[in-house]
């Protein structure tokens, strides 16, 4: 996941790209070249169409949903029972479960991800880093459904219930959150490492010249200097935790209720979308529209975090 870290900066061109020197281009326009350029621009435009497609495909059914259900009741209601009669569409139970899994995941991923990033950036010799970094990336490449299997069968069943003998049922937000945290470690580690490595060497040398040891330099000089990049990494980690589906669909549980503790089962927003999609609901029915209302909420939440993260990375880039 080096998307944000590496995505689109043309600032790295040390020499101006050819397009800025019109004198070098052909004096007579070639029709073929023009057509090719239009086609290439069209391909880039597909990404914009995708975004509009996402918004439209979520918004249209969601508007149908909100014609039947008051948005205030949707956002503040504490009972989620779309299948029952009378149906109730309070989304808070889904949100509490999402908050629990996300918080537990962050409690794992932030300290360990940052620790790994600091080690790789400030302590590891180049050779060691070349070995460790790809190994860490393996964690990011494991399919989420395999993580889900691991969370349900090993962490929840064998570890939490079997070994620790904790009072928990077949599912828990703890098992889902813990495994999700491990899954997010590479995201946070890799982006934070980029941020830490971008801090100029001169600042470390200045700190050392004043008598600070490496730990003091890391914690008091390098870390604060890289803070906006690190916050961007954490925000992206939150966004991934909120949007992760397979782990919570398998291990967190399928009952939508307000979750009060980590050992309880609960259905997250993504968990609801996954399980509702398995049921056969007709296009245009209220069940079908409910799916998209929750999807729209999920999209808005993650979009807000992604934008914050992209902004922070950009600010950090401008600083150094």
């Amino acid at each position: 996941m080096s998307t944000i870290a590496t995505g689109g900066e043309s600032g790295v061109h040390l020499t101006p790209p050819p397009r800025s020197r019109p004198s070098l281009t052909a004096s007579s326009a070639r029709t073929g070249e023009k057509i090719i350029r239009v086609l290439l621009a069209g391909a880039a435009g597909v990404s914009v169409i995708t975004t509009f497609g996402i918004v439209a495909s979520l918004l249209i059914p969601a508007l149908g949903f909100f014609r039947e259900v008051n948005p205030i009741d949707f956002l503040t209601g504490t009972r989620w029972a779309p299948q029952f009669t009378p149906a109730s569409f309070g989304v808070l139970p889904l949100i509490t479960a999402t908050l629990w899994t996300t918080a537990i995941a962050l409690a794992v991923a932030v300290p360990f991800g940052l620790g790994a990033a600091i080690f790789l950036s400030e302590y590891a010799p180049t050779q060691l880093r070349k070995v460790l970094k790809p190994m860490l990336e393996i964690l990011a490449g494991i399919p989420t459904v395999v993580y889900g299997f691991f969370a349900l069968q090993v962490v929840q069943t064998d570890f939490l219930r079997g070994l620790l003998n904790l009072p928990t049922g077949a599912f828990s937000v703890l098992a889902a959150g813990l495994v999700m945290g491990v899954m997010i470690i590479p995201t946070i580690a890799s982006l934070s490492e980029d941020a830490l490595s971008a801090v100029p060497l001169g600042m470390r040398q200045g700190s050392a010249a004043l008598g600070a040891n490496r730990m003091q330099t890391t914690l008091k000089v390098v870390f604060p200097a890289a803070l906006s990049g690190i916050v961007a990494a954490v925000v992206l980690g939150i966004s991934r935790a909120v949007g992760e589906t397979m782990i919570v669909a398998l291990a967190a549980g399928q009952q939508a209720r307000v979750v009060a503790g980590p050992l309880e089962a609960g259905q997250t927003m993504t968990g609801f979308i996954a399980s509702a999609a398995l049921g056969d609901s007709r296009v245009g029915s209220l069940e079908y529209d409910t799916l998209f209302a929750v999807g729209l909420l999920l999209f808005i939440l993650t979009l807000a975090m992604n934008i914050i993260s992209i902004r922070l990375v950009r600010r950090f880039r401008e600083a150094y």
Partner: protein
Amino acid sequence: MSVLETTRASATPLAGRAQGGERSPASIVFLIALWFSLFVAFFVLIVLIITTATEGAGRLDGRLLTEYTSATPDRAGARAAILGSIWVIAVTAILTIPLGIAAAIHLEEFADNSKWWNRFIEVNIQNLAAVPAIIYGMLALGLLALLGVQNKNIVIGGAIALGLLILPVIIIATRESLRAVPQEIRHGSLALGATEWQTVQKQTLPNAVPGIATGTILALSRALGEAAPLLLLGGLVYVTFDPNGLASGFTTMPIQIFNWTGRPQLEFRELAAAASILLLGMLLVMNALAIFIRNKYQRRW
């Protein structure tokens, strides 16, 4: 003391300060904590691989490859899922790779960054890369509903969902590879009278191919492991036939694993573990291929 050390540090950056303050208890605890962070990540990875392997080993046999899924665990296999995964990934590749490369060429070689729409496309792509996978399933669902397709669980529907999911990843990887080609090569080509498109076609793009191939294979391996968008298309249906076309019903490896994991019988748990090993093996082959291409063909300027 520190002054002397810093002089050394400037020769070999940050390597010379291992004495003195580095031995304070706080420093040592800090370093241990950093090692522990890495250890936790690798420990979980190893536990995951070992537990999955030991659980699934007994069921990793010919039946897994040749049999269709079944209600009796003994006779169940992942044949339809393996073929379904191959179909969907192949169609995804055909749809996405040309589109992604074309978009990247536009953004990297031709787009005028002073125009707001080109900057908008860039931010938009970064955003799309972080949109939850399941949302792409809802997009595909909306698209198929718009086209009036009744049977949603078809190969082309899955390929569209996965293709749009990995499109930003392919664009970003391709842009990085194009950016790594030195400007001098473009200048030389233009100086010899080549047009801008000829320069891209004959110089820039061929030089970027290894990087593009690596990035694309990694993106496709992500699509291979992804299940969430396909769940929305109803990918859990009971498929006991080989998929044979774009409009054919299908299931994939991750979906099949999801299905087996969710069942109560212990035999299905074993089967899910065996299929997970198979899936991890397929991903390992793709990743190894990507690393091989990168190491063998990538040029450093």
